[in-house]
């Protein structure tokens, strides 16, 4: 081997070892510097993606849209009825709580955001949203949609205008979960390489004789310090009972392929 090549190889290995031994904090600083440099390009990139999606949505068949509109009108009427009933119940509930000197029901302080980029990396299931620290967003905050839990904030850009959301379908996003109508609690997470059109989540560490059945809903327990309690996660699809513990496959309540607007929970009184 030529001396120059040998020196280059040693320098390369030294550099690789230096990078491999960086702490989480220095990695975050490196990432911040990288994304600050990339911000102008990212902005135009996400604008392009948003425009392309808007164009595709506009060109959807008009009959399909008409049917959707009719269905939405029906749904709206139904929801108005439910809402009026809900208001009455809420008022009654508040009066009863006041009478019993109870604490107020949980209230979420949320920030609405739009999904501007999907799956920017090969293996991790993440999306980027157009809200960051300027609107009070920090890491490890829960992200919701109308249908349930979407994921949690993984990274906030130093520009304060964007954040990255780790989706519930990613293996690394773990949520403490309970099964409705049963004492069962477990840890829910995505599956490795779960890029299918119909991703399933794994609910692990259930008891060996877990009395859970397909169709039961799964909610957050509120334990673990990240996710608030009683957020819908999905419904049980199948149960696999083992000798020591059981595991269930859960169909997520959120359609991750069609995420548009999401809500970041800034704080919640419990």
């Amino acid at each position, binding site marked *: 081997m030529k001396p*120059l*090549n040998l*020196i*280059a*190889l040693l*320098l*390369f290995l030294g*550099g*690789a070892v*230096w*990078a*491999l*031994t*960086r702490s*989480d904090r220095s*990695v*975050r600083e*490196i*990432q911040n*510097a*990288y994304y600050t440099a*990339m911000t102008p*390009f*990212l902005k135009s*990139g996400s604008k*392009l*993606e948003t425009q392309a999606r808007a164009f595709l949505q506009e060109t959807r068949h008009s009959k399909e849209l008409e049917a959707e509109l009719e269905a939405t009108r029906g749904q709206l009427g139904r929801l108005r009825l439910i809402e009026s009933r809900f208001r009455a119940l809420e008022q009654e509930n508040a009066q009863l709580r006041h009478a019993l000197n109870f604490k107020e029901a949980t209230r979420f302080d949320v920030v609405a955001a739009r999904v501007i*980029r*999907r*799956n*920017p*990396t*090969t*293996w*991790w299931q*993440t999306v980027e949203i157009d809200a960051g620290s300027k609107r009070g967003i920090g*890491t*490890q905050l829960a992200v919701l949609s109308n249908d349930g839990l979407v994921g*949690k904030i*993984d*990274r906030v850009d130093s520009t304060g205008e964007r954040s990255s959301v*780790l989706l519930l379908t990613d*293996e*690394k996003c*773990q949520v*403490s979960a309970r099964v409705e109508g049963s004492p069962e609690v477990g*840890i829910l*997470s995505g*599956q*490795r*390489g*779960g*890029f*299918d059109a119909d991703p399933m989540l794994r609910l692990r560490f259930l008891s060996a004789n877990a009395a859970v059945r397909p169709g039961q809903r799964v909610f957050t327990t509120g*334990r*673990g*310090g*990240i996710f608030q309690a009683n957020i819908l996660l999905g419904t049980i699809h199948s149960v696999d009972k083992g000798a020591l513990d059981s595991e269930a496959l859960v169909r997520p309540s959120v359609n991750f*392929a069609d995420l548009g607007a999401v809500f970041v929970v800034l704080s919640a009184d419990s």
Partner: protein
Amino acid sequence: MIRYSIATILLLLAAFVVQQFLPAFTGIHHSRILLVQLVFLCCAVTVGQPTMLLLAFIGGFFWDAQCALGPHGGDSEVYRQQVENLRFGYSILLFGGMGFLMQGIQPLFKQGKWHFSALLSGIAVLLYLAAEYTIINFVRGDFTLSRATMWQMAYTSILTMFFSPLIFWMLFTIASSCGHSINPEAGRRRRSRWT
């Protein structure tokens, strides 16, 4: 030679910018065009070992800066079995490995047979993805390989490989504008055929 080496570094940095505009193809198993890896592989076959290693370091370093996930967070009493992160910097070694693979067929490239390099770039991307997925399995345990993941890796390699002639054309153009020949033997053979 130095001007060409600097141009390849700039081209790799430009690939990082263009990569931001290339989303995953959700209809094809979330496969994507890995432009950064492709530009690195094509450059690796046209430069000497020191430049290749410098490109591998820059490529791997910035790729990890782009993709690294944050720490798990949450109460460790509740989340006892936390899912491990890949160490920042692992891509530098993967890029280096791919670069050495590409340099193995540098003699063929210098003879003007760039088609082999184009084909090998697809194979190298497949190996890169397979190695990356194996590392994930090794670090996190519980080896799983679904059919969807295999298709994702295969389609990503094929899609990426299709763009390699374009990158080689760009490299030939850059080399000629820098007054540098990246396949000197082919040039000599062409000249001797004319005389």
